[in-house]
């Protein structure tokens, strides 16, 4: 029943014939994330989802652009705002919804929920509800890859806010020291909760990685080509044993910090939100480029959108119908 969106093998980034498949796949992935999140919001608003969720809408190009440069056996770690990363790395929509609704069929049998989706099959080592908390895990996975003589790469996704956590600096130092195959992908979506990043971060964000001798690429996080190209380069460097990279992507979250954050006027303006949605939407920008360059027609893109729509609907229906875990599961999986 689960149709995992396998990450395609990476392809050259120029939009030639051979790359068409690559880009259309990434387009589909962005659509899947966008539509997934819209339905999460619906589920919350209609009180059918327990708890809260942090939506990734608006930031799709980052997760998809980066994961588009990865193999299935590469690793990622994710954050509280993790749905996009999970889908981009290949998670199945229906199993994700099932997890969000606390159902047995979910990725974690309902034990993890929105903030803890993990999927070993696709190299997803888990979302993490501790800001910055997964930086060690990603670096450790890179450590293991190197120790095992594999060429797997680990990607650590985190937000601008996570640069407040000391752990991130500790592991960047070691990654640089030991040339570990890890990408630190900082998603600067302008805010940590309800505070603009400039109010909590001094100096330069990129310089913090550069201080450890880690190469830093700043990219427009709304431009999938830019993100994907930066990721390809960083991944190549990591696979070649040359060590970590830091990708700083400027992006924006369309919704509130979480689904319940509806009144946002006290920390950001409606105009700002509208500007990003109108001028800087990663999906529209990609569609425009795909059409302009003749990679795909509008009809093809609409067909993808509609296919995804059907997948999402089916996923939601699946999850709503799915049974809860047996109560006795509460004491299982505490120990391996």
């Amino acid at each position, binding site marked *: 029943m689960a149709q995992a969106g396998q990450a395609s093998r990476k392809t050259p980034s120029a939009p030639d014939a051979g790359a068409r498949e690559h880009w259309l796949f990434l387009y589909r992935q962005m659509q899947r994330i966008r539509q997934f999140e819209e339905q999460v919001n619906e589920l919350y608003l209609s009180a059918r989802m*327990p708890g809260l969720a942090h939506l990734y809408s608006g930031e799709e190009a980052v997760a998809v652009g980066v994961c588009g440069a990865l193999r299935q056996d590469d690793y990622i770690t994710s954050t509280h705002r993790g749905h996009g990363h999970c889908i981009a790395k290949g998670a199945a929509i229906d199993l994700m919804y099932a997890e969000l609704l606390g159902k047995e069929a979910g990725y974690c*049998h309902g*034990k993890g929920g929105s*903030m803890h989706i993990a999927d070993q099959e696709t190299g997803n080592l888990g979302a993490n509800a501790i800001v910055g908390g997964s930086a060690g895990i990603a670096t450790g996975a890179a450590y293991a890859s190197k120790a095992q003589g594999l060429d797997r790469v680990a990607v650590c996704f985190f937000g601008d806010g996570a640069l407040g*956590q000391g752990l991130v600096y500790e592991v960047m130092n070691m990654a640089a020291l030991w040339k570990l195959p890890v990408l630190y992908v900082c998603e600067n979506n302008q805010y*940590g909760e309800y*505070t603009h990043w400039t109010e*909590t971060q001094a100096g330069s964000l990129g310089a913090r990685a550069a201080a450890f001798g880690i190469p830093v690429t700043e990219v427009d996080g709304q431009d999938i080509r830019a993100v994907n190209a930066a990721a390809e380069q960083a991944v190549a460097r990591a696979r070649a044993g040359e060590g970590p990279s830091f990708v700083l992507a400027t992006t924006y979250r369309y919704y509130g910090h979480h689904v319940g954050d509806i009144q946002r006027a006290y920390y950001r303006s409606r105009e700002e939100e509208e500007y990003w949605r109108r001028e800087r939407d990663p999906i529209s920008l990609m569609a425009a480029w795909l059409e302009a360059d003749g990679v795909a027609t509008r009809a093809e893109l609409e067909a993808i959108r509609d296919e995804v729509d059907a997948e999402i609907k089916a996923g939601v229906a699946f999850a709503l119908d799915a049974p809860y875990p047996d109560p006795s599961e509460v004491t299982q999986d505490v120990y391996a």
Partner: protein
Amino acid sequence: MSTPSLTSSAAAAGATQATATREITLSQAIREALAEELRRDPRVFVIGEDVAEAGTPFKVLSGLVEEFGKTRIVDSPISEAGITGIGVGAAMTGMRPVVDIMFGDFLGIVMDQIANQAAKVHYMSGGKLKVPMVIRTTLGATRRSAAQHSQSLHAWVSHIPGLKVVLPSTPYDAKGLLKTAIRDDNPVVFFEDKMMYQLKGPVPEDEYTIPFGVADVKREGTDITIVATSSMVQVALAAAENLAQLGISAEVVDPRTMFPLDKETLIASAKKTSRAIVVDEGYERYGVTAELAAVIAEGAFYYLDAPVKRMGAMDVPVPFSPVLEDQTVPTPATVTEMARTLCGRV
């Protein structure tokens, strides 16, 4: 049980007091305590993530920044260890910081600053330096927030000499204890139950404080003692109500502070009833229920008719799914059941 009249909840309800009271939420009680202390003492300031305009994610601090400004209600980066350390240093040099650690689960990040720095400075310096600071944080599950946002980790700090640890269970207690915490010359860790923020209760208009180390008998009874903390006090009171229907008279005792601990009141109650249950929302094993049960079992040894029973959170990481999560915390039903069994009334 011999609590000063102003500090007992009966008094708060206005029974013996001239003071006017009104019903406010626990959240409002916390805000009032902070506002009063911020007004009273210019050394007090609040620091934490999104404490200013946002008033914290729980909206507990709403309105404070408007009155006290951004230099006293300070939005910080997401650097819990850093702000706790800054709090320690500021406290050592004449300020009275109130550090906001959004979720008690994040204590893991700040334990060094709390347990190795804040708690030990006074002793290590031979009494010369002191750290008058409050760490406000939260506890409690059943918010569907999963394993890293649902823990009640007060056992960790209760273990450490040099710290005081407070767990209010009503708006009245929350306000009076928080004011005492801010005025205390020692580091105090103050735990608020997230699920209780909207709980209403009577709070006097007039100023008051509640001394640390004085347990409060929330309900008197004769057949069994239920010692309960924080969120579990309401659970114990509901269970006591159930038990009354069954003809069992339960006494509910709230220690209110884990340290200093009012052992006398706990032991006296257990001696009187000869049976005791201890209920707390922290993990059961090596948790607060162990200490409270051990204290009672030792202190009331010759009076107990049955072993002291412990009811903590289930020893599992808190699961997300409601059908799982709801099982992990003591409820009025499970406490009632345990009390019946202990009283031989099943």
